[in-house]
């Protein structure tokens, strides 16, 4: 089956099994290896991407369901050569990343969250991270970095409509 969708702003056309998990296409065919396949069961969050602006696990998303959708991966958020997303910049500044395995997923979940919840409290930030497991950093520093990011954006008056991806 032919599936077409937008991948990081560009047209993408695939011809293959419509039940292939999106994560496998990203990693094996498009070499977008920022998205990690860890548990493949929806529990760890390492494979999170945005589909039509919503953060969802790509391990459980058959490509047949992304026909006509816009998919953004961590590489689409910032290539690394350009300015980082404010949340990435805060993670870097807070030295919140250790092995980094969980981080692309963490950033994809939380970038959508800060966009939609500019006034989020600490418990709300924690609730948003329930599906993102980190085995290294300990979550408090990540929560601190998200809270700082929201704080800075509020002070800079950026958040009238949220932080934009």
């Amino acid at each position, binding site marked *: *089956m032919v599936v077409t969708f937008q991948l990081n702003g560009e047209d993408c056309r695939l011809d293959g*099994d*419509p*039940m292939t*998990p999106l994560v496998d296409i990203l990693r094996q065919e498009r070499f977008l290896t920022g998205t990690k396949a860890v548990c*493949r*069961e*929806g*529990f760890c*969050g390492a494979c*999170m991407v945005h589909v039509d602006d*919503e*953060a*969802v*696990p790509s*391990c*459980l*998303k*058959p490509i*047949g*369901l992304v*026909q006509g959708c816009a998919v953004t991966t961590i590489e689409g958020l910032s290539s690394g050569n350009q300015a980082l997303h404010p949340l990435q910049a805060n993670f870097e500044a807070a030295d919140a990343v250790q092995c980094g395995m969980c981080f692309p997923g963490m950033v994809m*979940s939380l970038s959508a969250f800060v966009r939609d919840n500019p006034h989020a409290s600490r418990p709300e930030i924690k*609730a*948003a991270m*329930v*599906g993102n*497991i980190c085995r290294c950093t300990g979550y408090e520093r990540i929560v601190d970095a998200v809270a700082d990011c929201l704080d800075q954006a509020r002070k800079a008056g950026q958040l009238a409509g949220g932080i934009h991806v």
Partner: protein
Amino acid sequence: MAPGVERSFTAASTIEEALAARRQGASVLAGGTWMMRDPRRGVDLPEAVVALHRIPALSKVEVEPDHVVIGAAVTHAALGRALRGSAGFEGLVAAAEGAANPGIRRVATVGGNLCALDFAAADLAPALLVCEATVELQTFEGPRLLGISDFLKDRHALLTEAIVTRIHLRRDLIASAHIRLPLRQAGDYPVAIVSLAVDRNKRCRIAVGSVEPVARRWTALEQAMAAGPASALDPQRVAELALEHNDFQGRDGKEADGWYRRQVLPPLVKRGVAALLSTEGVAWL
């Protein structure tokens, strides 16, 4: 799937189209969060699937003064948003917003939660049992309405020839609550679930999920409570009745043994009654 065979994938745009594909042997695909894990359970993915996400009628929640209709392809997240703040549906909202994790809730549908056969820990099942929901099916013979209890009991047989299209709820509850016990907060399946509701006649309804293979009403406890005064909505007293009328056979499973699931019910009921009492609807007590 046999080598060289191409999988068939239909994104139906009407219920009729979905049913036609179903008639030809396609399996229903909703959010995919259950089905996509079939290979990990040693089950092959179906050779033909029919997806429901492009059928507008199945993706909306209609909230009317006296009833609510939920499309089967509505996600947990969308259900929570649609009913948040609606008196009487506090429990259903808590179930939709507390199950799994945020990423799964954005994808997993109401229909998928009720139709995942052999999934005992579905949060929406006990929450809809206390709403006394009616399940609407499209079968090969036409539409059919069924009480949620009967649907859950018979779904293995029913779903061989049907698609769940909508869930109908009366707005006859004044308060409800949903208490779940996962071993950790990080998206684990709940070990036991207790849903409670009080209707306009001040009758208490209680349902239990994840303890037995299929969620069911706790009729023995409901009857014991009905036999007492209205002030029986006292957390400690109800927990004592729950202990006395605990007629559940706990199932052994990966997260917990059966005896444990059964044993945690009275304290969960106690928490549930306390949650009910904190809602505006039961301020009369």
